Structures are given as structure tokens and as C-alpha cells.
């Protein structure tokens, strides 16, 4: 061991170097976001809770009930039932999305040929009741208020 190394060891240069880094952090500004008090704005593409879009003028649901989203879904969490409506057109009777099974991959949004189902930036999904995970058509339609104004498809 050379003299230089002995001096370095005896003067604790390496430790002091480390201490200086943490010392700098001690006085520097903190990165913590105190979550419930302040919330970060998520990015526009964020894949959160789903929403079904409806025509703003007529209030008619965009979804055709084509089953594409239900078929592509890797976790099989979407359930759609359709029937012939009074006007002879296909109507969506039942649209259920089980959030407890959803993996938030965004495939449903990607394959939808009508931009009817989209993902919104809503990420606070914790709940006391498992029933809240069953997103019915009404809940999904209500959630469209949270959607981004500009829909960014792929």
C-alpha cells in the first residue's frame, strides 16, 4: 500500500466524498410529491380507466357492438350483448367491463373502429367494494367527461 493510499485512508477521503453527496441532498430541494394533497398531471396518452364515448349532440352511444374489443382483450374482461333495436338497427344492450380483470394494455382502444371505447387519465381506482370494478355502460358513459379533449389514437 503506497503512502498516498494510507493518507487517503487515514483522512477518510472516500467517506467524506460520499458524505458530501448526501449532504448536498440534505439541503437541496426535495422530490417528494405528497400524493393526496398534490397530484401529478398524467401524460395525454395515459392508460387509465375506460370510457365509452357518445355523440355529444344526440347522446347516442358510439359503440356498434362489433365485439372487436371483447375479442382482442387478453384478459377477457369485456362483455357486450346486442340485439335488434326498434328501428331495426343493432343496439348495445349491455356493455360490462370488469376492471378487476383489466390489465390496461389499451388493445380495446386500439382496435375499436369507431373510437367508441377509449382510456382516460383516471387512475385513482382503489375502492372498498368489488362491485365498483364492474363498469357498466352507464358508468363508462359517465366517465367520458374525464377523457382527454383531443383523442390520440394510434
Amino acid at each position: 500500500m503506497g503512502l498516498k493510499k494510507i493518507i487517503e485512508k487515514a483522512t477518510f477521503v472516500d467517506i467524506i466524498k460520499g458524505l458530501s453527496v448526501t449532504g448536498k441532498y440534505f439541503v437541496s430541494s426535495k422530490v417528494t410529491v405528497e400524493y393526496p394533497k398534490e397530484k401529478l398531471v398524467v401524460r395525454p396518452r395515459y392508460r387509465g380507466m375506460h370510457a365509452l364515448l357518445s355523440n355529444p349532440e344526440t347522446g347516442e352511444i358510439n359503440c356498434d357492438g362489433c365485439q372487436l374489443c371483447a375479442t382482442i382483450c387478453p384478459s377477457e374482461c369485456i362483455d357486450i350483448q346486442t340485439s335488434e333495436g326498434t328501428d331495426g338497427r343493432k343496439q348495445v344492450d349491455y356493455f360490462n367491463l370488469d376492471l378487476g380483470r383489466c390489465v390496461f394494455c389499451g388493445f380495446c382502444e386500439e382496435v375499436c373502429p369507431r373510437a367508441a371505447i377509449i382510456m382516460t387519465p383516471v387512475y385513482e381506482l382503489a375502492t372498498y367494494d368489488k362491485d365498483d370494478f364492474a363498469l357498466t355502460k352507464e358508468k363508462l358513459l359517465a366517465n367520458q367527461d374525464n377523457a382527454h379533449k383531443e383523442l390520440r389514437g394510434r
Partner: protein
Amino acid sequence: MIEFVFLVVKAVLFLAVGVGMVPFLIYFERKFAGFFQTRVGPTYAGPGGVLQSFGDMAKLLSKEDLTPAWADGPIFRLAPYILFVPPFIAMTLIPFGPMGVDIFGYKVDMVIANFDAGLIMFLALSSIAVYGVVLGGWSSNNRWSLLGSLRSGAQMISYEIAMGLSLVGMIIMAGSLSLVDIVNQQAGNFWDWFWLPQLVGFTIFFVSAIAELNRGPFDLPEAEQELVAGYMTEYTGMRWGMYMMGEYVSMVVVSAIIATLYLGGWRAPLEVLGFIPGFIWLIGKVLAIIFLLMWIRWTVPRYRYNQLMDIGWKVFLPLALVNLVATAVIVSVI
């Protein structure tokens, strides 16, 4: 009679300060740990999170007190006290002001117990605390705990000798084992204190003191990443809390001893500042040392147990001996 009253008052005050400091130290530890990690630490309980430790304590007290089925019950229950009590006894040795201060016309010594062999007493008490760890780990009947207590034993034998020897140089200079006398010998400004002539001894003692406190980088007995929680693995509720509190009380005591032996005890760093009462300086020094301990803990990794033994036997022991001989020669020549 009046001396006894003063003694009781002093003892109660000390106990109150010692115990009362612990929640705040735990709070500071968590807060500072946060600051060192660019976090903010606890913020919710009370202003700035200051009541966090009280909340934790309430939680610990209300938790179930478990004794593992195959544990050695009495020893298991006793062990936390073995760790918890000695620091309080050691606290009585620390002088926090000059002797014979005039209070309401009475001469009062600003120390609870002025032992002639105070330093030996401190070393003895600090060794007893190890039994708390060893017995606690052994009686839990858990292999991780056992390893933790074994490490603690191995750790103790490796640093205690160097620690004791490092003090001898200082004792030669002071010419006394009494802490009161040692502080009196350090009269003057901060460059007159013992840390400067005894720099080697001071360093060895400081590092050994960290090992004594089981704090990082020497927190081997409770090394979380290796031994789950070491000797504390099986402890729950307030018994675990006693270990935790004991650790912080000993931190106060050891810091106070370091301040007393090497940093002038209750004396002001400059004589012109002597008008400020001694106990304020003492508390200031203690807090500064505790801050340094926290800073080190939250910066460096942990040694391996055989490396600590290597340091104790192969580095510190020879250094302490050299320091001792050098001090003896210089003192006898001058």
C-alpha cells in the same frame, strides 16, 4: 437533606430529558433520513410530522405482545430491559456544568454521580448492553436471531479492546478516570480540548462508538438485508419498541460521553462564550454528534462481520497501542 432533594431533581430531569429526547430523535432520524434521500420524511402527524413517533409508540403499545412457542420465555422477556436500562445508569455519570454552582444559596454539583472511576463504569455498562442483544437473539429460538446475536458477540470482542485502549491515552493526559476531572482538564478554547492531541484515539473511539451503537456501517446484528431483523426478528409490540428506544438512549449517552471525553463536555468552544450555560453546550454537542452519526448511517454501506473484526484487531488495536505509547512518552518528557 437538601442535597438529596437536588439529587432527585437532577435525576428526574435527566431521566425526563433522556426519555423525552427519544421520540424526537426517532423523528429526527426519519426526517433527516428523508432529507438525505431528497424526500421530505414524515409530514402528517402534527406540524411537520413531529408527532409521528408518538403515534408509532401508541401503535406499538397497542400491539399484541407475542412470545414464540419455543422461545425461552423469561429470558426472552427480560432481554429488552438488559439493553434498555444500562444507558440510563451511564447517563448519571455525565457532568453538565461546573461543580459547586450556586443555586438559591446552595452549592450544587452539576453532575448526578461523580465517580472517581466513571470511565470504567461507562465501559462496564456499555458491555452489559450487549447481553441484551445476545440473550434476546438466543432466546427467540429463531436462526436469524441467533445469527444476529452471534454477530453481536463477535462484534463486541473485536472493538471493545481497541475502544478501551484508545481511551488510555486520553486518561494519561487527564490524569484521572473521573469524567468531572476530565472535563476540568479541558478548560480553555476548543483547540485545548483532547480531540486535537488525541486525534488518533478520538477517531478510534468514535468509530468504535458507532459499532457499540449497532448503527451503520456497523449495524451487523440487525442487518435487515441479511438477517431479516437480526436479534429483533421475533420481537413484537413494545418489546421491540424497547430495543428501538434503548438504541436511541444509548446514542444520546455515547454522544454525551464522546463530547465529555474529547470535546470539552459542557464547556463553550471559545472562552468568551462561557456565559451561556454549560448544559446548552453539552446538548448542542450531543445533537451535533448524533447528526453526524445519522449522516454516516444514511450514506455508507455495511461492513461484513469478519471485516469489522479485522478492523478491530488488525488496525485499531495496533493504532491504539501506538497512540498509547506515544502519548505516554510525550507526557513523561514534557
